[in-house]
């Protein structure tokens, strides 16, 4: 077993357990913290895949900025404890059934198709370094990039329109 596999499996345990913890904890703050751990584990995966830029962006944007806002909102609203939502009787068995089906199918696929999965592409030198990311972003994907900036501007204007106090006359 190479060190990569050990790293991969260890991270997988962390990622899956933290995801489960996020779902099962009754305290919203704990859920948010589990989610942060999950995001960080994903970031380390990106590192293993040779994409440090995306890894660190993942931590900055998701684990840092977005989750801080989540926690901020949870604290301001005092919504740490979620009440038990009344679920229909069929929801729990249905969810369990679907989950079991998913696990069985993925196990089947993993064990039968293990050798037919495409091999990962050899990482070329300089892959995923900031310079290359920048070149792709501003050359091939320049139009989506600009549209996204427009989109964010619109979202900002919209948020202000919807929350601004009534205009004084």
């Amino acid at each position, binding site marked *: 077993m190479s060190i990569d596999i050990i790293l991969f499996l260890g991270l997988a345990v962390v990622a899956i357990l933290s995801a489960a913890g996020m779902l099962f904890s009754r305290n919203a*703050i704990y859920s948010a*913290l589990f989610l*942060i751990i999950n995001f960080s584990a994903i970031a380390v995966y990106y590192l293993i895949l040779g994409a*440090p*830029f995306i890894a*660190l*962006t993942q*931590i*900055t944007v998701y*684990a*840092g*900025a977005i989750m*801080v*806002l989540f*926690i*901020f909102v949870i*604290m*301001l609203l005092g919504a740490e404890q979620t009440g038990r939502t009344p679920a229909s009787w069929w929801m729990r068995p249905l969810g369990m059934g679907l989950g079991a089906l998913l696990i069985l199918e993925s196990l089947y696929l993993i064990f039968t198709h293990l050798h037919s999965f495409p091999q990962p592409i050899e990482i070329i030198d300089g892959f995923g*370094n*900031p310079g290359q990311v920048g070149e792709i972003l501003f050359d091939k994907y320049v139009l989506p990039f600009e549209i996204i900036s427009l989109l964010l501007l619109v979202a900002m204007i919209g948020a202000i329109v919807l929350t601004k106090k009534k205009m004084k006359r």
Partner: protein
Amino acid sequence: MIMDWALLTEWTIKSLVLIFGLIGGFAYLTLFERKVLARFQVRIGPNRAGPHGILQPIADAIKLIFKEELIPAKADKIIFIVAPIITVIPALIILAVVPFGPDIRLFGRTITLYISDLNVAVLYIMSVTSISVYGIVLAGWSSNNKYATLGGIRSTAQMISYELALGLGFVGPILLSGSLSLVGIVDAQKNVWFFLYQPVGAFIFWVANLAEVNRAPFDMPEAEQELTAGYHTEYSGMKFALFFMAEYIKMIAVSAIAVTLFFGGYRGPLVDQFPVLGPLYFLIKVVAFLYLMVWVRATLPRIRYDRLMAFGWKLLFPISLGNVLLTAVGIGLVGITGNNLWLWFIPVSTILFFLLVSHFAQGAVAGGNK
């Protein structure tokens, strides 16, 4: 394999030196601050423990370790205990990408005076900064105390707001050096420190830094008059010491980063001939910045909270955006004309822009949110 072990040993030693250096630095920074503050206020400062009070930090440490540790009955125990640890770790690891000196030769090996030359080092710093909010906000929340929670929430709002200006402050040196690696940024400052090209950027970066580490005049989260001791109201003993430690280590860290980005890092006269001078220059510059921090604390009163936010959003943020734009224009001009003198367009135009905006934005900031 032997090389690997040697490399591993080297890394371990370097990391340990960095961590213990920071912890020692923290201890003596407290003494330094108290002494300097005392001079500002025409006092003498601590002078009992050892000659000139030189053993004072050790006395403090002993006191803190032997104090009783309290955990409030209604606190969230796990997070209450973990929060100080979460606060300290980012402060300790953030300097891993900062070079302290040029490569030196020791025992027949070339040893680099940084732990890692990441090609995304600036992003690394940004992400560690963004993580470091959690310790404080969780400490405030888990104490189950209104003052502490408010302190925690205030600090979150403040840090999120000033992170924007901070991040944009990074962009100037990145554009000028064409590198996201701090080693590359320092190398690019061989002839001219970026401070000269980026006076406004450096200023904004420094102000935002003060807010990020919750130093006066932005020490809102621990405003005694309003919030008793802010987020660490309920902490005592060693856990309190950890918060204390994190704050002072962060002071050292941001000073080191500011020096690296804008003031040539370890660069100085004769460094290339005598590499040992590198760390020395670095230390001198960092101490100068720490002195500046204490000086600011001794001089400026704390800003009111709403004005703090208005200052960040309405003044610092637009100016740093304009700074990025004008820097890019200046570099573009160099690219078009091929004449390096156009770089001086950047400081001239940014300073004019700064004066213009601060003139017009005065009302907006002073008015605050009504």
